[in-house]
C-alpha cells in the first residue's frame, strides 16, 4: 500500500483507533516504509516531552478571583503579569515582523513620507497639513480593517475587528462591514468581537437597530446572551418588544429566556 493510502489510516493507528486487518495493513506498511515509520516513532517520542507543572500560586490567584467575582467584582480581577513584558523593545520589533506589524510599519512610512514631503515642499499651513495627514492615515487604517474583515481566516477577521477599535469615528463603509460581521460571520468569536467593537458606536442609530435585528437572528446562546447584555448596558428601552418576542420563541435555550426576562425587568 502507498503512503498516500496509509495517510488515511495512520492518524487512527497513532491514536490506537485501528483494529484487525486495518491495523495489520498499517503495521506491514511501517515495516517497509522508513518515512511513515519515522512518523509513528515521532508520535511515540512526543510522549517523552514531559508535562509542565503549574506554579502553586495559581490556586491562590484562582481563589482570589473567585472571591472577588462572588463579591460582585468579577471584572478586572485577573491581574496580568505579562503586560509589562509586552513593553520590551524586542517585543515591539517582533511585532513589526508580523503581518499586522508590517501593515502598521507601511502606514508609518507613508505618514513619514507625507510629512517630509509637506515640510520640504513648503506647505502653506502646518496645521492644515497635519490634519490632512491624519485624515489620510485614518482612512488607510480603516481600509486595512475593511480588508481584514473580508479574509477567509477567522483569526484575521478578528484582527480586522480589532483594527476598527483604533478609530473613534468609523467610516460608514467600515461600520457597515462591522454590522454585517455581527450578523453573518461564521465564527461566533468574530461575531462576539464585532459586538464588542460596535458597543462603542451606540450613538449611531443603525448600530442599535442591527443589534436588535441580530437578537432575533442569532442561534448561538452565547451570542444571544451577549446581545441581551449589550442592550441592557445601553439601557435601550426600545429593545423590550424585541426581547419579549425572543423569549416567546418555542425552542429558545432556557438560560437565554431567563436572561431575556431579567433584561426586560431591567429595561422597564
Amino acid at each position, binding site marked *: 500500500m502507498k503512503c498516500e493510502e496509509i495517510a488515511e489510516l495512520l492518524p487512527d493507528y497513532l491514536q490506537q483507533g485501528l483494529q484487525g486487518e486495518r491495523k495489520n495493513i498499517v503495521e506491514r506498511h511501517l515495516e517497509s516504509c522508513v518515512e511513515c515509520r*519515522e*512518523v509513528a516513532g515521532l508520535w511515540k517520542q*512526543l510522549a517523552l*516531552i514531559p508535562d509542565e507543572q*503549574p506554579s502553586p500560586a*495559581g490556586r491562590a490567584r484562582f481563589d482570589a478571583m473567585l472571591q472577588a467575582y462572588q463579591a460582585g467584582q468579577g471584572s478586572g480581577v485577573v491581574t*496580568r*503579569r505579562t503586560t509589562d513584558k509586552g513593553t520590551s523593545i524586542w517585543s515591539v520589533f517582533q511585532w513589526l515582523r508580523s503581518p499586522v506589524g508590517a501593515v502598521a510599519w507601511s502606514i508609518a512610512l507613508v505618514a513619514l513620507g507625507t510629512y517630509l514631503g509637506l515640510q520640504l515642499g513648503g506647505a502653506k499651513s502646518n496645521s492644515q497639513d497635519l490634519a490632512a495627514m491624519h485624515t489620510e492615515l485614518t482612512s488607510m487604517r480603516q481600509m486595512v480593517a475593511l480588508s481584514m474583515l473580508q479574509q477567509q481566516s477567522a483569526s484575521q477577521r478578528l484582527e480586522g475587528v480589532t483594527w476598527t477599535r483604533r478609530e473613534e469615528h468609523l467610516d460608514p463603509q467600515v461600520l457597515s462591514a462591522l454590522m454585517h460581521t455581527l450578523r453573518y460571520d461564521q465564527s461566533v468569536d468574530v461575531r462576539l*468581537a464585532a459586538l464588542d467593537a460596535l458597543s462603542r458606536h451606540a450613538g449611531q442609530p443603525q448600530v442599535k437597530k442591527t443589534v436588535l435585528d441580530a437578537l432575533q437572528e442569532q442561534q448561538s446562546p452565547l451570542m444571544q446572551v451577549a446581545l441581551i447584555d449589550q442592550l441592557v448596558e445601553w439601557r435601550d428601552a426600545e429593545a423590550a418588544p424585541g426581547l419579549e418576542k425572543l423569549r416567546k420563541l418555542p425552542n429558545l435555550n432556557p438560560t437565554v429566556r431567563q436572561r431575556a426576562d431579567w433584561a426586560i425587568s431591567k429595561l422597564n
Partner: protein
Amino acid sequence: MLQVRDGAGEMLGVLFERYHAPLYNFYAKLTGDRALSEDLVQEVFLRILRHRQTFRDGTPFRAWIYQIARNARIDHFRKSRPQVPFEPEMAPAVAPGDPAQQQQESELLHRAMMELPEEKRELLVLCRFQELPYEDVARLVGCGVATVKVRIHRAMQELRQIFHQLQAAPASSAQRAAAQNFPPRRMT
C-alpha cells in the same frame, strides 16, 4: 459543571483542581511561555464563571472548556500580537534519570514542535498531549473529522522534516536569534 452553572461557585474549585494542570500544559506547549500560560488559565476560569449559564446539559465538558481556552488565547494574541520565540531555556526539564541521548532528542523534538506553524502545533497538542479524540478536535476547530486526520498527518510530516533539519544542524536557537539580532529570552 452543572452545579457551577446553577450557582454553586465553590464547585468551580473542583473543576480548577481537575483541569488547571492540563490547561496549563495546553498553553505552555502552544506558547512556550509559562507566565502567559498561568494568566490564560486564570482567564479560562473567569470566563467559565461569566459564561457558565451558556453551558448546556449534555455538552461534553472537556470540549467546552477547550473551546473557551482556544478563544482566550485567540483574544490574547489579538490584543498583543508578538509571540515569544522558542528558546532552549524554555525547553521543559526532562525527567531526571533519562539517558542523555533521550534527553537531547526530547529537547530537539520540543524545539521542532515550537517551529511548527501555530495551527499545526495546536492540533498536535490537542490530539497528542491533551488526548482529545479526533471528533472533539474537529468540533473545536470547526471542520470534519477526516480533515483533522489529514491535518494531523501533514503536521507529523512537517514535524519530521523540521526534526531532521534540527538534527542535521543543531545550532541553538539562541545562536540563531543572535544572528537575527534578537536577544534570547528566558522563561519567567
